[in-house]
């Protein structure tokens, strides 16, 4: 997927563990791991809000758009 989750970096900056973040946000460690490893298919706004609140950051700090080759090609074709 072209959306990369930079939870590792933010957790390191805040010196917080995944377990602690899961408890604060109110989701299971398993689900947070799914998000961290990029296997999640969707994120609820409520979850994103909770993450940003507990990590004191913006959504752009956690979610980054990294287009792959196929996505980039389709965008260029659309622009033309």
């Amino acid at each position, binding site marked *: 997927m072209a959306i990369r989750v930079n939870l590792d970096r933010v957790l390191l900056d805040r010196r917080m563990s995944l377990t602690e973040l899961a408890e604060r946000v109110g*989701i299971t460690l398993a*689900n*947070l791991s*799914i*998000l961290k490893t990029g*296997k*999640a*298919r*969707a*994120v*609820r706004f409520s*979850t994103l809000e909770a993450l940003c609140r507990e990590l004191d950051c913006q959504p752009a700090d956690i979610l980054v758009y990294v287009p792959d080759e196929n996505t980039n090609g389709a965008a260029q074709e659309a622009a033309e």
Partner: protein
Amino acid sequence: MKAVNDNMGTPIAKGLNVLLVIAMVFIAIAIIFFLTAGLALSFDNSFKADIVSKLAETNNSGLSKNASIACFGGAIVASLWFYVLNILRKIVGTLLSGDPFIPENISRLRKIWIFIALSEIIRIIFVNISSAGEMIIDIRAGTLFLVFVIAALSEVFRHGAELRRDAELTI
């Protein structure tokens, strides 16, 4: 994998499970009957003579000539139906456990319509083989309709499993 819905099956699903087991028992008995009759009719004996004469009285001369082939064909078709019922029992089992939208059920539904279509083809083939010369075209519209319905349902199930996966992986 934890089920999204913890409902452990409706009374209809539980009743269906019981009916499937009963049907499988009856079909197993039918398979044994067909195989036994087929073997008995393969060799000359008094039983074979009685059956052949009775079939001749019903003006079904084709079957009387190759009754043993018809019996073996019946055993094969019944075996396919037994397999279909077994697959269906597994699907109902997942429903009773609270999680029917699993990838295995998609392939199971696909197998069901393929094997029903196959059983119908084999039935037509054996009817024509045992008729010895008489061409019999006996396509059952009901079975064909059933194949189409199950094929469509398997695609619906695939979509349902995909939606289920999306829901699971929505954090």
